């Protein structure tokens, strides 16, 4: 197990390096540069700026400089903000992390119970009604659901602010916007996983032993039934992150997602790279965690590996 984790961490580093390299050259391929904003600046000022940041040097020299400072933990200056990239990430990442955590929590807290109930009471109203709603939920894109929620709960009912990130109640709408879609997906996956296990022979064995209904569900079915949900958590996290790009912009949340979007538009090379590194690290680590949980849940994988 330990060897497995170590191996995966090394793999993660390799993946990060590839992502950094590819992103580094891709952003430079995009037309324009950090200083070609709407308001054009005098060419000699721009030349000085390019020189100051080393952007006038050949790409591979820039790459060498970037990687060597990266190895020292320095993500470089931002070309469009007065803060450097380390500071920006330190300020915005916790905001996005909180938003993402709420969204995932909502997704799990709604999706899991709904899916379990739908599977247990399959082909009844407790199955049909929530599952039809889930189908609608899956089809609703974030950029539609967000404004709808803001309009309904913010503007008409006036329960929440339509934008900003100050009090705890400001978390509700953005987290719901991202979370509901995944709640729907998780409900469907949970239902499928549970149904798959409930029709297995060993459930019949448990019934033949006189195991009561709720014990059959919680002790004999959940473990296997939730495995597909666990493997979905990796893609779900990636989805939540891309959801946050949209939602942080809609609700004016000072998070990493918004920085990522604006830095890409502004060709703020170092900031793009910084955010990409954070996201890539987050996703690969989350996938590692998913794999570990899967191994813990499923004894068969555990023994094949060791």
């Amino acid at each position: 197990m330990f060897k497995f984790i170590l191996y995966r961490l090394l793999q993660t580093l390799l993946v990060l390096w590839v992502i950094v390299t590819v992103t580094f050259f891709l952003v430079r391929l995009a037309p324009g540069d950090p200083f070609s904003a709407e308001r054009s600046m005098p060419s000699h000022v721009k030349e000085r700026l390019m020189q100051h940041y080393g952007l006038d040097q050949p790409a591979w020299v820039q790459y060498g400089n970037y990687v060597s400072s990266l190895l020292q933990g320095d993500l470089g200056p931002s070309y469009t903000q007065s803060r450097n990239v380390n500071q920006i990430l330190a300020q915005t990442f916790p905001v996005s992390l909180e938003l993402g955590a709420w969204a995932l929590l909502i997704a799990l807290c709604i999706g899991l119970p709904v899916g379990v109930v739908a599977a247990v009471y399959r082909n009844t109203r407790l199955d049909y009604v929530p599952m039809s709603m889930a189908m609608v939920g899956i089809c609703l894109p974030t950029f539609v659901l967000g404004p709808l929620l803001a309009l309904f709960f913010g503007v008409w009912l006036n329960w929440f602010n339509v934008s900003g990130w100050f009090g705890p109640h400001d978390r509700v709408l953005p987290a719901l916007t991202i979370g509901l879609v995944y709640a729907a997906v998780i409900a469907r996956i949970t239902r499928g996983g549970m149904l798959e296990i409930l029709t297995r022979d060993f459930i019949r064995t448990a019934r033949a032993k006189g195991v009561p209904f709720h014990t059959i569900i919680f002790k004999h079915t959940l473990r296997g039934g939730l495995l597909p949900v666990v493997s979905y958590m990796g893609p779900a996290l990636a989805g939540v992150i891309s959801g946050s790009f949209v939602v942080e912009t809609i609700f004016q949340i000072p998070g990493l997602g918004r920085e990522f979007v604006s830095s890409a538009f502004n060709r703020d090379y170092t900031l793009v790279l910084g955010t990409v590194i954070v996201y890539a690290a987050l996703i690969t680590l989350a996938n590692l965690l998913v794999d570990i949980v899967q191994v813990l849940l499923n004894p068969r994988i555990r023994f094949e590996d060791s």
Partner: protein
Amino acid sequence: MAQPVLQVQNLTTRFHTRNGVVRAVEDVSFDLNQGEVLGIVGESGCGKSVTCYSMMGLIPQPPGRIEAGSAVLDGQIDLLKASEREMNAIRGKRISMIFQDPMTSLNPYLRISTQLIEPLQLHEKLSKKAAIERGVEALKEVGIPQAEERIHFYPHEFSGGMRQRVMIAMAMITQPDILIADEPTTALDVTVQAQILELIRQRQQANGSAVILITHDLGVVAGLCDRILVMYAGRVVETGTAHEVFKKARHPYTIALQRSIPSLGTKGKPLYTIPGLPPDLSKPIPGDAFALRKGIVSGGKWDHTPPPMVQLSETHWVRESDCELPSLEEVLREC
């Protein structure tokens, strides 16, 4: 004579599926006496499993429905009408069950220990520690070496035969009055089959339990059963003591089943198999259920008025049939 532990009367179970009504079990009656071994024999799809699942409350409803009958335990409780709570107190304690496929009958996500001691925790309210001790005992009794360690293994670390031993240990751990074994050896290697049957017999005698042994192979029940029930197309066609069914069989189907036991004596001769297939139970059987079985005739209209059961002795009953089966030599010459 003492009262039977289980009296099944006129059991009728059907499945109401999209493709029609499957008449899986029609009007089946039998008694099970204390400590005896009853064999239920018939080809696949004849309703053997459904008969037992009905008694255990394991029929998925819907599509299944128990249309009629009773299955009375101890002359007191009708299992077919008992509530889920009453059944949970009976299943695993008074009546246990083992299944055909030991590879899928154990939960792959739970340790053997967890599954094995569950009946003790549920029915005897034993502490985990005491239950584990009994579990280790039980595993030793079914011949699993290093039981102290292996009780903590997962099912996939056991071979098929070993898993069936675990199933037997799990079923017998509460010393039930009745053990239902549904084709317990069908999925196993031939070499292991005899061991498992011997083990069932041994545990049965140690506990004094009654056993219902389901099989499609009359050879399997030969040395093991006190009484035998032969089923065909959801109905009983012949029932009697082992001696009666083997030596004085009257129904052509029973005789055909006997002939299809591969035995040492037939070496060199072609193996006999009953020609044709059993009828599709999802459609009514307008005439003779044996219509597709060359050489066997019983007459009657099986969906309404099957041939009646005739009593031959105190224990021997047979469904009326219109024919004498031609001698085996004749049959083999034909094919």
